[in-house]
């Protein structure tokens, strides 16, 4: 394939009589594909980061929402693009879920994960009027024969898989009730139509701070600074930990020098004060991870998602 854009650029340089041999990356706009509609979690994340990242990279970011199929359309598109370093996708654990559920043709190895920037916990939460003051009473009731109804956002979503995994870890057999989105799930638990929900921290944030909903446990390995009063599963004797993550990935084959430049810019951009305020308000935590550690993180998570999906679809 002839790279038309590069040819055109070379031609332009030749015309200008400029003979610079190696152009500094990035020398033109970067395309950022958000596989969801504007206004969602992934979209707000990149738009909050955009000003700082543009400053650090010294170029313009063109954020494009390519929604459809719960992220499948946009990610499939990116996986097929050339790895020239000029297209990045905003990714979350939803990518791994899509693969695990067998909805898509790509695999995690089709991407080079550049960075994990944000994390939020999955919370097991109940209404403020719930009969369960803590996790132990819920487990006791469930082992006594009651089937706990746990609401999740969307069938086959990450939250759905996680709720299944939490049920297994607790040693109970809940009925998973899929709702169309996070807000529908939250209002169902507030109204007492279901017993509990498993949702990401950001989706539960407003319900938690208005004290309409209580979190029984967080999926973080340690208590988070933003929710210090919520105990972890591990603390309560349940061997379970996971988290929602958001970050950036490129099509497979990203040059090392490009990756290094991106990581450097991201490291500095995430220190931006405005970005910190925004993510704080949203109920997410800054948890950057790059390079090999990131690859390992992704592989472990993918493995777990696959196992969970297998159990569910049996």
């Amino acid at each position, binding site marked *: 394939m002839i790279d*038309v*854009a590069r040819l055109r650029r070379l031609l332009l340089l030749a015309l200008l009589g400029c003979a610079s041999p190696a152009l500094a990356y990035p020398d033109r706009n970067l*395309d950022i594909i958000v596989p969801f509609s504007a206004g969602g979690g992934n979209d707000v994340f990149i738009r909050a980061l955009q000003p700082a990242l543009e400053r650090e990279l010294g170029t313009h970011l*063109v*954020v*494009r*929402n390519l929604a459809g199929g719960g992220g499948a359309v946009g990610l499939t598109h990116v996986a097929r693009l050339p790895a020239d370093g000029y297209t990045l996708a905003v990714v979350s654990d939803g990518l791994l879920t899509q693969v695990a559920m067998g909805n898509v043709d790509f695999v995690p190895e089709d991407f080079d994960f550049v960075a994990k920037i944000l994390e939020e916990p999955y919370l097991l939460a109940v209404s403020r009027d719930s009969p369960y003051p803590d996790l132990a009473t819920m487990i006791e009731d469930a082992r006594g024969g009651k089937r706990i109804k746990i609401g999740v956002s969307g069938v086959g979503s990450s939250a759905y898989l996680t709720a299944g995994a939490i049920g297994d870890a607790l040693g109970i057999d809940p009925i998973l009730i899929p709702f169309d989105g996070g807000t529908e799930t939250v209002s169902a638990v507030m109204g007492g139509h279901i017993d509990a929900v498993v949702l990401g921290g950001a989706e539960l944030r407003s319900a938690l701070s208005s004290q309409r909903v209580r979190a029984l446990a967080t999926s973080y390995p340690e208590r988070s600074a933003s929710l210090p009063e919520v105990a972890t599963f591990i603390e309560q004797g349940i061997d379970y930990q996971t988290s929602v993550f958001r970050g950036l990935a490129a099509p497979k084959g990203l040059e090392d020098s490009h990756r290094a430049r991106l990581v450097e810019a991201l490291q500095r951009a995430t220190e931006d004060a405005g970005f910190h305020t925004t993510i704080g308000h949203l109920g997410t935590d800054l948890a950057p991870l790059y390079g090999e550690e990131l690859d390992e993180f992704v592989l472990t998570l993918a493995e777990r998602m696959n196992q969970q999906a297998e159990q*569910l679809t*049996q």
Partner: protein
Amino acid sequence: MNGSTGSIAFNALLLLGALAAFFAASALPSGNAPETLPPAALPQAVAVLVGALAALCLVRELRAWRYRRAATKVAGRRSATAGVALVALMAAYAAAFEPLGYLLSTMGFIVACVVMLGFASRARNDDEAIFSTRSLVTLAIIAIGVPVAVYCAFTWGFEVPLPTLR
């Protein structure tokens, strides 16, 4: 419109579609939630109802058709050519949207659409000058001005990138 050939064909198509949909729905797996209705339940029920109602309509249409054939011929037939041509142009526009980019494809579509409508209506309106200077100037202003304005508004106002020619 009762009893026209088109109406009969449309009802027949609905009936066939309902049949096909019913069988497609029957092939759906049942999922793994035994407490509730299977995924195939609603599509199947809807397909049955559509089929039954369409069959009923078809019977009525056929009766009306026999009656009409006996009575009079259809008067004042309207030509649907312009509609077909518009759909074809829209399809071409959709196909060109990403490869040619927003600006070129949109300009091309506006010009093609206006020219097509001009020709389509000429048969009935001999008095109208399609290619008068004045209308050509208006066409040029709209065909270039509107896409450029929209492009600018999206690219710089909303920061939504539109496809461009690469």
